[in-house]
């Protein structure tokens, strides 16, 4: 390299960003070395270190808390992304399945606790609507309640065999219950 270095070359040499060929030239060129020395002096004069601003501890704490929250968020995001794609629907399905199971079992349990008058009554023709082995006023009440509800009427509830399930059947059971009670006080 025979030409002298430009100001830009020298400036880049000053900060270690110059091409090695420039460094070699300056090392062997007194004029460029002088110019570099002057540039270094000027750069020192131009340098204005940033003012030291005291940062209050609460400001540090607030920003560091933000940093930790963001780190937690990032970790969570990555964890979600790491789950196999084909499994992702499963993660959504599991809570739904759990909810469905709970609803199912609760419904089942309620059904088991419901009066037997709501179930098909094979033994109801005898007046034993709740099939507890005896005919009493409870059977009459259950049948009366069933008539008021919208549930379909079981033909076996037809106590007087008139082809209808109605209040007369309730009365018949009630009458039978009272008679039985009289006979077996």
């Amino acid at each position, binding site marked *: 390299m025979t030409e002298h270095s*430009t*100001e*830009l070359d020298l*400036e*880049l040499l000053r*900060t270690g*960003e110059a091409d090695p060929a420039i460094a070699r030239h300056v090392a062997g060129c007194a004029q460029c070395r002088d110019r570099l020395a*002057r*540039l270094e002096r*000027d*750069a020192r*004069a*131009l*340098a*204005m270190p*940033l*003012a*030291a*601003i*005291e*940062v*209050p501890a609460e*400001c*540090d704490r*607030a*920003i*560091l808390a*933000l*940093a*930790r929250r*963001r*780190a*937690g*968020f*990032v*970790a*969570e*995001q*990555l964890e979600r992304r790491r789950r196999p794609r084909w499994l992702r629907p499963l993660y959504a399905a599991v809570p739904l399945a759990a909810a469905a199971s709970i609803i199912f079992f609760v419904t089942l349990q309620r059904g088991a606790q419901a009066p037997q008058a709501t179930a098909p009554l094979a033994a109801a023709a005898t007046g034993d609507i709740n099939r507890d082995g005896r005919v009493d006023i409870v059977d009459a009440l259950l049948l009366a309640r069933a008539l008021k509800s919208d549930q379909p009427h079981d033909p076996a509830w037809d106590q007087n065999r008139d082809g209808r399930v109605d209040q007369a059947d309730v009365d018949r059971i009630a009458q039978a219950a009272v008679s039985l009670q009289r006979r077996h006080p």
Partner: protein
Amino acid sequence: MAPSDERELVARANQGDAAAFEELYRRHRDWVVGLAWRFVGNRDDALDVLQETFAALFDRFPGFALTSSLRGYLYPVVKHRCISLLRKRRRVVAIDEARTARGDLAGELAWQPDPPGEFAEIISALPAEQREVVRLRFALDLKLEEIAQALAIPTGTVKSRLHNALKVLLKVV
């Protein structure tokens, strides 16, 4: 190119490492608040910009890619936050560059004093685009690539502006 340990910190932060987030803050806190002070000229505003700048930086994770140094990335963030803050507070005062050495960077910002003496006058006389490169180079000690990133211009343009500014500076002084 960013220092390898800085790239490593960014990589760890991208994995949700809280210690890496904290280290990024501790390393660049003083530089950011000092730079903000240069733009806005008072401590309280500089502290506001400090918080906003790091909140904006943290929001870039995960997936933050460091192309140069973090300072090169942070410079425009700080600058634009300062502009927004000054606009919001309606404290922008037109600065007559012929009478003051402060000058402005974006037609909005003040720059707290340049070096005293003959350089101040020369710097203020430079075209705005050269002046900003000179300040980034000498006052903030940024490398060419960092300046290119900070100003979102090609490295060749940085070289050109710096070269022209140096010719003036070294000829006049």
